[in-house]
């Protein structure tokens, strides 16, 4: 897929759960001792300005009718790598972008209490907007000091700074690469700050990270 002027061919998307202290407090989840990893499948990826499709299947069921935004800093893997020590991590990063980890919140909450996987609530088509561009590691020397915010219809809903990340990018890359081989283009989303909340068909979502830009997507009802 194209992100700005760059073309990437990711083989996987790995997201980090509960990685901002303020978000951990709002969810009531425990502070993790190790990074919490979950996948999103590639069918969820869309570009800047593409619509986020609100699935009818969720909209029409009271027990599932909540779909949330979650703005996140994502990094793109540069080369095939495994067992990377954190002091070498930046050598394996192509750059940074904005990711919106759209989540069927009621479905996820229900699956979590039943101790089920988080897959279905996270991976509906279009639940992974990404962009508007990839900024390379020369341009962003310190990815842990970037303002990050999300606006819903012009109103700020999430506002934080990447300095509040619990596990920093080098630690994340070290940890993930002890488990699995990363490939060029793979996307790692580093977690969302507090302020998560629901979106409705017709809403306009603007997710912004300092030095990267703004990812804009509107929400449309499936089939309309």
């Amino acid at each position, binding site marked *: 897929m194209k992100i700005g002027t760059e073309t990437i061919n990711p083989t*996987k998307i*790995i997201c980090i759960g509960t990685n901002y202290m303020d978000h951990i407090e709002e969810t009531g989840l425990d502070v993790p001792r190790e990074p919490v*990893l*979950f996948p999103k499948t590639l*069918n969820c990826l869309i570009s800047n300005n593409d619509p986020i499709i609100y699935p009818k299947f969720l909209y029409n069921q009271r027990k599932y009718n909540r779909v949330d935004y979650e703005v996140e800093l994502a990094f793109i893997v540069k080369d095939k790598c495994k067992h990377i020590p954190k002091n070498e991590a930046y050598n394996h990063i192509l750059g940074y972008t904005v990711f919106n980890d759209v989540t069927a919140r009621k479905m996820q909450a229900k699956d979590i209490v039943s101790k089920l*996987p988080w897959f*279905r609530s996270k991976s509906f088509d279009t639940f992974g907007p990404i962009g508007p561009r990839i900024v390379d590691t020369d341009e962003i020397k310190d990815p842990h000091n970037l303002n990050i915010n999300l606006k819903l219809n012009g109103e700020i809903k999430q506002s934080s700074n990447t300095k509040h990340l619990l596990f920093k990018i080098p630690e994340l890359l070290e940890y993930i690469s002890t488990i699995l*081989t990363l490939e060029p283009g793979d996307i790692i989303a580093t977690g969302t700050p507090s302020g998560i909340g629901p979106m409705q068909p017709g809403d306009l979502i603007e997710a912004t990270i300092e030095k990267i830009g703004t990812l804009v997507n509107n929400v449309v009802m499936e089939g309309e």
Partner: protein
Amino acid sequence: MKAQVPKNPIFFVKTVNTLVADGDPIIYPKILYNNQDYNQVDHEVELAFIISQNCKNIQAEHGYEYIEGYTIFLDITARKMQISDRNINLPWYRSKNFDSFGPIGPRIVNFNGIEDPHNLNIQLKINGEIRQQSNTKHMIFKIPEILEYLSKFITLSPGDIVATGTPSGVGPIQPEDIIEASIEKIGTITHKVILEE
């Protein structure tokens, strides 16, 4: 393992880094082997089907039109890690997705070659001894229902792999074990377990 009978199919993800072919080794990760909290890696033999074309919102009665064929899949799982993650309501991802935790093969049998995928003997041997033995007729959710449900959520693409679940008898594998997973009309995949260097 005690789990409730699910109302809907339960899906989780294995990423493509797990895939290895018939004859390739299954690598037992050192970080599991050397950690008493995590040192159990289990075999799970499964019937898998391969998607033939892009599809979304498929009705069960049309399910077979979107299937390329069938193969054998081994859902290798770091069991203690999975249980420990599940106990604290965490995702199932890491325990399922170490490199080489997804052996697949030895061939894809075209869907025409297997008239009824729900009547196939399925078994797994470790070092020649049978550990799992069942028949795909015991699957709770049949393939067309699985495809209908899954395609409500996501668009499936040609080559996507859907593994249909494992029968009873799951248990641990150890470095040096030889794993043979067989499904009637498909064949056998054979893998040696080796400790990560």
